[in-house]
């Protein structure tokens, strides 16, 4: 305790203040100064640019408004009706569902398998981890452009493979049948490394004695994995699922360079649908209605998921 006080005293003296001898507890005066100086910047920014816009979205969504002047043309809930009557909206919702399905069925098992292999120490393990994590830090725009080259029907890698087999190369991104599939592959390429890192971090902080105990008791490698390691990873798996779903709901940057949501809206996500139909045409009311729907989905999901699956965390 004494040593600590000395450690504190010196920086204070550096600041040019002589320590007064009076014993003063953490008084209200000091706290008040901090409160009025330290909290407002963050609260103000957050309220101005995060909370108010959400509230305003709900307000604007009741108008037919192009963003200029004041909103006057009140149309009630019509914008929501228009959104729900648009086929492209349901396609976008379906595509978000597909992204979630692929994340859970392919990306998550892949990430988990790789983590189990790479959590151990061997030559090259760290290099491989870094390599697999690399796509995650690349900008989504750059990733999308790289893959629009990969998929390009004239110059791309896929086309070249097709030609070696003597087949006419497909234009994957230009067909309503394959565009979304192509996007899904890029999603896995880009994000599996992030989930792998989550699992590696969890595996490294795992209590090794439990695994050893299981092995000593005669459990095989597979049994240990199934009945000890994986159950210990459940919290991380739930977290990984949470991120996959939230990530899917905000996917946008990746889609733009690949397909812009096309052809014929076949590869829109919720956000690219919002961009194409609300923002780029300045239909503020309609776009706000889409935003409010997306907001409602995100918040409902986050609360439900937290309540059902992540109660103890």
């Amino acid at each position, binding site marked *: *305790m004494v040593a600590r006080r000395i450690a504190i005293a010196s920086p204070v003296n550096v600041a040019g203040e002589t320590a007064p001898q009076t014993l003063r507890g953490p008084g209200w005066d000091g706290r008040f100064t901090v409160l009025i100086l330290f909290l407002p910047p963050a609260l103000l920014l*957050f309220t101005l*640019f995060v909370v108010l*816009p959400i509230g305003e979205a709900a307000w604007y969504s009741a108008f037919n408004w192009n963003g200029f002047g004041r909103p006057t043309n009140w149309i009630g809930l019509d914008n929501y009706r228009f959104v729900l009557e648009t086929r492209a909206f349901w396609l976008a919702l379906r595509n978000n569902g597909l992204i979630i399905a692929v994340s859970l069925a392919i990306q998550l098992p892949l990430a988990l398998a790789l983590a189990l292999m790479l959590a151990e120490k061997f030559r090259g393990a760290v290099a491989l981890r870094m*390599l697999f994590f690399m796509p995650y830090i690349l*900008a989504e725009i750059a990733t999308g452009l790289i893959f629009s080259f990969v998929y390009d029907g004239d110059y791309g890698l896929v086309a070249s493979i097709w030609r070696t087999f003597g087949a006419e190369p497909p234009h994957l991104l230009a067909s309503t049948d394959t565009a979304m599939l192509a996007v899904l592959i890029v999603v896995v390429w880009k994000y599996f490394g992030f989930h792998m890192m989550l699992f590696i971090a969890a595996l490294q902080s795992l209590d090794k004695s439990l695994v050893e105990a299981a092995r000593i008791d005669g459990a095989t490698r597979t049994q240990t994995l199934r009945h000890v390691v994986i159950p210990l990873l459940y919290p991380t798996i739930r977290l990984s699922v949470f991120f996959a779903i939230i990530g899917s709901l905000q996917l946008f940057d990746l889609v733009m360079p690949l397909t812009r949501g096309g052809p014929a809206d076949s590869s829109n996500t919720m956000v690219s649908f919002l961009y194409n139909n609300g923002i780029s045409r300045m239909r503020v009311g309609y776009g706000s209605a889409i935003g409010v729907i997306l907001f409602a989905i995100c*918040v409902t999901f986050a609360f439900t998921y937290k309540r059902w699956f992540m109660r103890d965390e």
Partner: protein
Amino acid sequence: MNSTGARHAFDPAVLFKALFLGLVAIFVLVPLLATLLGGFKSLGELRVNPFGLPSHWEWQNYADILFSARYWQLLRNSLVISTLAVTLTLITASMAAFTFAHVRFFGSSMLLSYLTLGLLFPAATAVLPLFIKVRDLGLLDTYFGVALPQVAFSLAMSVLLLRRFFKDIPYELLEAALVDGCSYIKFFRYVTLPLSRPILATVGTITFVNSWNAYLLPLVMLNTDALYPWPLGIMVYQGEYSSEWHLILAFITLTILPTIILFLLAQKHIVAGLTAGAVKG
């Protein structure tokens, strides 16, 4: 998973593992290498040989971009916006986090929950009203018009991470300092911040990477080409050179180069930073 007895004996599990890792490595590497090498080819060669090494190295593709004002302007714009976002996030978030960690006041937990609402939904949901707000504030087509909303949206995560770390600084330390006549603000400046360098680096890294790679906000807020950060600039470039893939690939390579260099230099911070939010949030 080596069989312990005979390290070099044939083990199908090891072979399977090596094959599997090799395949995934190829899956990750091939698009990146093809992009890098494609920038060294002529368009004609790219068409017949997109995979292999170029038969003739076209340094000109890269040189033209590196000596163009356009490339450096894009990087500069990105750097300005990201630096603004990181600086403002670190200042505002650490001050707020300090208050939430060390100052007891009525409504503290309520205000903290209010801030963490920001974790629940993406910026895109309210981007139209956000655009109108930024326009009404006269910040449209300025660096701040992009950076301020980015700061606002990174606050929730940043405050949570910082508060958790600040709380681990022993309370007795603060108490002793206050008894000795140190103010909260001086304690923050001379004790909390110096002790918190690792978490400040982590939060800074997350904010930087997010801002550096961002596309939607600058797309909505900026109209002037001269202010575009690189993700916008590269889309414009692609639009202009639509099928001259050798140039586009060279441009992509050069624009992601800073990210890759930064990643190789600061791997630990970046991995810790980008997974910290997940593990600790």
